[in-house]
């Protein structure tokens, strides 16, 4: 009897401790996600109940979304989609080519170039924005989609190159060599053999780049015009108004963040690479 106790007591203690830990974790998660829940519940609340607590949702209404639509949220979301897709598309094509070259060939100055690309992440964007602002102002790109798309392509290139390179590095080089022996050209190997193998990786890189551009604010604030302002700028301009309708703001926010929340679940496998620029792999 005594002997049995000796072994079971720590086990029980261990189980209790484990479930306590789990409970604490769930509690922290709940506290952590209250703002997200609040955003959604506020978006569906009738205007009269906006300040009546965070949780109760007595009547669900879509009037906030209608008002957001009238406010111009629709065109802002369209603008966000245009600049994000444009930026990611350009960056992706260029990054696939460059990262394949970086991954497979002995390019002169490769390490310096790769380090430079990584170091662009260190630069305060404010250093770049003044010359780009002057440049765009003089060339007439300020306030156009093209200007923002080009800057966004530049911003997402480093992340895309490093991430896609990390995926291509994972493919054994023997495959390229076998294809070479068969007499295929570099472009054939890249497009018919390598790319099909890293499609999930490329998609994940594109998604991370898209999230970055979708959320971008500083460049959009200074380089977009009245008709081309993306959602982040629209939201920031609401801030300056007096006595505005929080329900409408929440409705815009929900439309703005919902695609990201959906993407996050798909990206969980690649999260570590995405967050660390592809420098840490698993």
């Amino acid at each position: 009897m005594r002997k049995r106790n000796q072994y079971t007591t720590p086990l029980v203690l261990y189980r209790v401790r484990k479930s306590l830990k789990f409970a604490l974790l769930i509690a922290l998660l709940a506290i952590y996600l209250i703002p997200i829940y609040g955003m959604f519940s506020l978006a569906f609340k009738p205007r009269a109940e906006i300040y009546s607590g965070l949780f109760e949702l007595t009547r669900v209404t879509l009037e906030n979304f209608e008002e957001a639509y009238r406010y111009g949220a629709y065109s802002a979301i369209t603008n966000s989609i245009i600049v994000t897709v444009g930026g990611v598309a350009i960056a992706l094509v260029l990054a696939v080519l460059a990262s394949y070259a970086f991954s497979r060939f002995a390019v002169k100055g490769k390490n310096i170039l790769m380090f430079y690309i990584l170091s662009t992440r260190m630069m305060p964007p404010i250093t770049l924005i003044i010359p780009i602002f002057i440049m765009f102002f003089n060339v007439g790109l300020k306030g156009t989609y093209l200007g923002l798309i080009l800057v966004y392509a530049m911003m997402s290139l480093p992340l895309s190159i490093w991430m896609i390179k990390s995926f291509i590095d994972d493919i054994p080089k023997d495959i390229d060599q076998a294809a070479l022996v068969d007499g295929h050209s570099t472009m054939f190997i890249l497009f018919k053999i390598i790319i099909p193998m890293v499609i999930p990786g490329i998609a994940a890189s594109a998604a991370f780049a898209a999230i970055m551009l979708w959320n971008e604010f500083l460049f959009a604030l200074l380089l977009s015009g009245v008709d081309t302002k993306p959602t982040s700028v629209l939201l920031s301009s609401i801030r300056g108004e007096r006595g505005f309708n929080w329900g409408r703001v929440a409705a815009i926010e929900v439309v703005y963040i919902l695609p990201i929340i959906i993407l996050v679940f798909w990206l969980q496998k690649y999260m570590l690479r995405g967050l660390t620029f592809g420098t840490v792999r698993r």
Partner: protein
Amino acid sequence: MRKPFSKEFFNKGRMLNPWLMILPAFLILLVFNIFPLLWSLGISFYRFSVIIREAPRYVGGLNYINVITSAEAWDRIIRTGIYLAYALSLQFGLGLLLSLLLFEDFKGKRMLITLFTIPLMIAPVASSLFFRYLFDENLGPVNNFLKSIAGYGPLWFSSNMSPLGIPYALLTVVLVETWIWTPFVMFLLTAGMSSIPQDLIEQSRVDSIKFRHKFRYVILPYIKPMIALALIFRFMDSLKTFDSIYILTAGGPGATTELISVYIYRVAFERWDFGSATALSYLILVIVIFMTNVFMRYILGGERS
């Protein structure tokens, strides 16, 4: 003589010059990154006033001297330092706590981690704007709640001193930034902990060593590189904090939350003094590079010895 099937044979065969593949990407970076970077270094040596439409005038290092001797700039740098100390210690404390709670495997761990990363991925503009509603001084849910249990709600966007030793407005910025970035730290530390060999964990469990010792001798050595990485990333990004401050307080009240990036933005696009703004941003760039090296040496170097 080149042997067939050797490395040289493949590299110099009928293959595309790799530079042709790098060139398009490099051109974009050249035009929109390298060129602006050099240009802004140039601007920092000129007196460049857009408003009065005078031609840019070369002034040598005058902008740098002005910035270094300006009490205002130093005030913003010190503010940024205080902000960094509070924000980073909160983020790392909470992140470490969460990752320790996530140390053991259980069903649905991955899902839990993913849910935690949502605040990290959504736009800071959206979440900050929503926090403005949450922390609203008169009617916001946070103050409603505090008033109902404590009978008192602080003015979250004022320059009044908070019990933590920083003004409330700065505290609000710290809290919002912590909400956004803690998952990042948690995520990297969890990844570091998952690299601890399983038999080491089991051994420590069999020996039932104290948690303190387990942390010191089992966990810490494995998460050290990740701590360094997280610290470098967080340090760099915290200096860039702009979106959330712009939305929450726009640097106010007064200059309470005017951290260095907001300050540079204001100098550049409200006073239109491009020369001083670029000079200051170059000084910040130098500080970032220097501190990054220090972190690397200190944390990774300590491990080697």
